[in-house]
C-alpha cells in the first residue's frame, strides 16, 4: 500500500461515456476519476469493458458520447500519438510490439534518435535504451530481437516503452497476467517510483492480492457500467469481488494430498532439449493435477511444448500407460490423447479471424462433429453453446469473431476448445491468464471435475496461490531442471520459492543440494 493519498485533485476524469460495437454495448454512462499521485485499480469481470475504456483514453477507439478531462481540461484523444502527446501512456492487454525489431528499436519506435533527418543513430538508440533499462532495473538486452523473448520479457519491454514516454497518466491493462511473483514485485516497485504528486496510474488486474498491495483506490465496473469506487485500505477482497460479480463466490478448499494409489499415465524420463531442458524427469498419475512452478524462463513452457511434440526433443523418453511413445508433433500427441493449451493465446491458441464456434470446435472437429467427412454444425454449435454457458463466455453470439472478444473471454474460448476435445492428458500452460476471479473458480471446478473423472492435468502457472490451491503435487523447476517434486502437504510458498531459486549452474551449494555435478 502506498501512502501518497494526500493529493486529491482529479488528474483524469471520465463522465457519461457510452461506447457500442456492432451487437455489443461495451460501456454505458461510464465514470472514472483518477487523482494525482494515486494508483487507481480498475476491476470487473471479463468483458466488463475495462480495456474498452482504456482504449478510449488512449485514442484507439472514439467514444459515442461522453466527457474526458485531463488536469481539468477537456480532451478527446484522436490517435495513439495524440494520447502520448497529452501525456497518457498505455500498456495494452495484448502486446503491441514489433516482433522483428530489437528491444531498443521497439522502445523508441517513432522517436528514434537520428543523424540528420533521415539516418538513424543506432548507437545512441542502444545507449539510451541501456540507460532506461538500468534506471528501471529491467535485465533486458537492448539488442535482443523481441519476437524471441519470452512472454514475460516482452511484457517488460512494453513497460519500458510506456515509461520511456514519461507520461502523466500511465495505464496498465493486466500487466501482470504473464508475470510471476518476483516479476510482479519488480513491477510494483517500478510503479511506486513512478507515482509522483503530478502523475497517476490506472491499474487493471484480476489478481486481488496485487490490488491490495499496490492500489490506493479501486473502481469496480460491471457489464459496462460504473458500480462503485472504494478505498483499498478499508475495503475487503470479498467486498470488491461481490461488487464485481454481483453474487457470492465460493472459494473452494485445497485438494487432498497425493494420489499414490493411482496408475501412472504419463512418464517423462531424462528429457533434454537443445534450448534449455536438462534431464527432466517426472510422472503424471491418473486423476491428478500436477502443478508446475518456477520463475520466468525456468523451462515449464518448454516442458509442455516438448511433451506434445511442438519442440524437438534431443533425448529422453515419454511413456504412456507404461509403453514408450514417439511424439513427433502435436498431431501425434492428440492421437495419444494429450492436449496442450499454450500460454500465448493470440499466437498459438486462437483463430483470431474465425468465430467462437469454429474456435471451440477446432480440436474436436474430426472426432466429434463430423460424419462422412462433413461437419455437423448443429452438434458443434450445441457443444460450443454449452461451454459459452458454463464458462460464462461473454459474446453476443457464437458467430462473433474471436478477435472482438475481450482478452479473458478469448482465454475462455481456448479453454473450451480443450475441454471439448476430451483428452486424457491435458497440459495447461497459464490457463487462467487474464481470467476474472469468478470465472477462475468455475475453471478450477471444471478442472477438479475432470480430475475426478480420471483425467490427468499438468497445470503450469506463475500464480503460486493457484498452484497451491489446485495441485495434488507440485513440480518445481529452475534453469531447465526439475529441482523438486512436492506433495500437496509439503507445498507452500516458502518451499516452492526455495527450490525455484536454486541455481545449480552458478552455485555449487545448490548443485550439491540437488546432487548434480555441474561444470567441467
Amino acid at each position, binding site marked *: 500500500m502506498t501512502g501518497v493519498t494526500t493529493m486529491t485533485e482529479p488528474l483524469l476524469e471520465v463522465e457519461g461515456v457510452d461506447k457500442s*460495437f*456492432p*451487437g455489443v454495448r461495451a460501456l454505458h454512462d461510464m465514470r472514472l476519476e483518477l487523482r494525482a499521485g494515486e494508483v487507481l485499480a480498475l476491476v470487473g469481470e471479463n468483458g466488463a469493458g475495462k480495456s474498452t475504456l482504456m482504449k478510449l483514453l488512449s*485514442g*484507439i*477507439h472514439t467514444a459515442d458520447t461522453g466527457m474526458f478531462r485531463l488536469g481539468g481540461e477537456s480532451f478527446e484523444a484522436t*490517435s*495513439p500519438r495524440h494520447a502520448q502527446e497529452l501525456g497518457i501512456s498505455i500498456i495494452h492487454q495484448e502486446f503491441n510490439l514489433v516482433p522483428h525489431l530489437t528491444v531498443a528499436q521497439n522502445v523508441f519506435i517513432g522517436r528514434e534518435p537520428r543523424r540528420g533527418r533521415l539516418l538513424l543513430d543506432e548507437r545512441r538508440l542502444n545507449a539510451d535504451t541501456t540507460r532506461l533499462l538500468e534506471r528501471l532495473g529491467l535485465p533486458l538486452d537492448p539488442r535482443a530481437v523481441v519476437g524471441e523473448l519470452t512472454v514475460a520479457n516482452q511484457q517488460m519491454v512494453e513497460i519500458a516503452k510506456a515509461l520511456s514516454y514519461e507520461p502523466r497518466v500511465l495505464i496498465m491493462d493486466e500487466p501482470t497476467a504473464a508475470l510471476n511473483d518476483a516479476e510482479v514485485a519488480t513491477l510494483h516497485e517500478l510503479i511506486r517510483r513512478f507515482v509522483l504528486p503530478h502523475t497517476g496510474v490506472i491499474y487493471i488486474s484480476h489478481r486481488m492480492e496485487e490490488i491490495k498491495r499496490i492500489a490506493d483506490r479501486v473502481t469496480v465496473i460491471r457489464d459496462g457500467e460504473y458500480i462503485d469506487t472504494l478505498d483499498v485500505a478499508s475495503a475487503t477482497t470479498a467486498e470488491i469481488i461481490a461488487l464485481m460479480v454481483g453474487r457470492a463466490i465460493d472459494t473452494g478448499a485445497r485438494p487432498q494430498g497425493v494420489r499414490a494409489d493411482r496408475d501412472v499415465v504419463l512418464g517423462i524420463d531424462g528429457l533434454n532439449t537443445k534450448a534449455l531442458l536438462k534431464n527432466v524427469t517426472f510422472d503424471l498419475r491418473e486423476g491428478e493435477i500436477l502443478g508446475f512452478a518456477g520463475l520466468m524462463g525456468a523451462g515449464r513452457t518448454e516442458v509442455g511444448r516438448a511433451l*506434445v511434440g*511442438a519442440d524437438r526433443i534431443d533425448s529422453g523418453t515419454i511413456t504412456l500407460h507404461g509403453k514408450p511413445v514417439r511424439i513427433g*508433433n*502435436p*498431431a501425434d*500427441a*492428440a*492421437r495419444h490423447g494429450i*492436449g*496442450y493449451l*499454450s500460454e500465448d493465446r493470440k*499466437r*498459438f*491458441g*486462437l*483463430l*483470431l*479471424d*474465425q*468465430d467462437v*464456434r*469454429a474456435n471451440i470446435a*477446432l*480440436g474436436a*472437429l*474430426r472426432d466429434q462433429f*463430423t460424419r462422412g*467427412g*462433413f*461437419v455437423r*454444425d448443429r452438434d*458443434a*454449435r450445441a457443444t460450443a453453446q454449452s461451454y459459452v454457458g458454463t464458462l460464462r463466455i461473454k459474446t453476443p*453470439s*457464437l*458467430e*462473433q*469473431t474471436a478477435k*472482438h472478444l475481450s482478452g479473458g473471454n478469448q482465454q475462455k474460448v481456448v479453454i473450451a*476448445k480443450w475441454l471439448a*476435445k476430451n483428452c486424457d492428458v491435458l497440459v495447461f500452460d497459464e490457463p487462467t491468464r487474464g481470467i476474472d476471479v469468478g470465472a477462475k473458480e468455475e475453471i478450477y471446478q471444471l478442472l477438479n471435475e475432470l480430475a475426478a473423472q480420471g483425467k490427468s492435468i499438468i497445470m503450469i502457472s506463475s500464480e503460486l496461490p493457484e498452484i497451491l490451491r489446485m495441485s495434488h503435487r507440485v513440480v518445481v523447476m529452475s534453469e531447465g531442471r526439475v529441482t523438486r517434486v512436492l506433495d500437496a502437504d509439503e507445498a507452500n510458498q516458502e518451499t516452492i520459492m526455495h527450490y525455484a531459486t536454486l541455481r545449480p549452474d552458478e552455485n555449487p551449494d545448490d548443485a550439491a543440494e540437488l546432487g548434480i555435478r555441474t561444470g567441467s
Partner: protein
Amino acid sequence: MAAVKTQAPERAQGGGIAGALKGSLQQLLAFASLIVIAAFFSFASPYFFSYGNFTAILFSTVVIGTLAIGTTFVIIAGGIDLSIGTGMALCAVMSGVFLVKLGLPLWLGVPAAVLFGGLIGLVNGINVALLKIPPFIATLAMMLVAEGLALVLSDSTPIYFTEAPGYTEISTGNLIPGVNFPNAVLVLLVVALIAGVLLRKSVLGRYTYSIGSNEEATALSGIDVRRWKIAIYAFAGLFIGLAGVLISARLGSAQPATGMGYELQAIAAVVIGGTSLSGGKGSIVGTLIGALIISVLNNGLQIMSIPQEWQNVILGCVILVAVYTDRIRKKEL
C-alpha cells in the same frame, strides 16, 4: 488509425441462419458491383444484353473460373499457387498423351488428366508442407517445370483430339438438347457447387480456413497440418487438371504454350472476389463473381469497341473502383 479500427464482424464460414443470411448479403453486395457493370454495358451497347452474349461471357469465364476455384482453397489456406497456368497446359498435353498418343478411351483418359493435375498439386503440397519451401517459390518452380514439360511431352507441337471423338463435346457440346448452352459452363457450375459445399461443410474446408487463419494454433490443436496442407494443394490440383481438359476440349487441341499468365488472372479473380491473400477468409461464390467481373469487363469493353490500349486502362480503374466501393459497403454493414 484504421489498422486498429473496429471492423464489422466478417464471416468466414457457415453456421446459423442469421449468419448465413448476413454472409450471403455481403456476397450479394459484391454481386451488386457485377450487376452495376453489366447494367452499364447493357445501356452503353445494344449488343451486350443478349442470350448469345451472356453464354459467350460465361463460356469465356470457364477456364479462369475453374482455376480460380482450386486456387481459392490454396489462398484461404494461406498459400499461393503460381503453377496453375502452365500446369493447366501440362494437363492439357497429358490429356492429349492419354487420349491420342496412348489411345485411352475417354472415360479413362479424362479422369487420368484430371488426376494428373492432382499430382501437380500433390508435389506442390509436399514441397510446401514437408520441405517447408515458401509457397510462392515452390509453385513458381513448378510453374517453370510444368512449362518446360508441356513442351517436352508434346514435342512443342499441339496435340489434336481429332482421334478422340467426343472429347470436344466436354466443352463445346450442349447437354441440354436444343438449348445453346455449352457443357463447359455446366461443368464449371457443378464443380463450383461441389467446391463450395466442400469448403463450407467438409473437414477439408474447415481445416483450410483454420490453417490459413493461424497455422500454428491449428497444429497445436492436434491437427496434422502438414498432411492437410498436402491434401489441400492436391485437391486444388484437380482443378488444374480439369481446366486443362476444358481448355483443350474447347480448342480441340492441347496447346503446350497456352497457360502462362492464366495464374495471375485466376488469382486476381480470387482476390477481387474477396478472398484475402493472407489467408483464413474467402468463398467460392466470391471467386465466381470475381471471375465474372473480369470477363464481363473484357467482353463489354470489346463490345463497345473501345480501342484496345484503352481497354486495359479502363479495366484497371474499374477493378479499383469496384473493390473500393465493395469495401466501403462492407464497412457500413
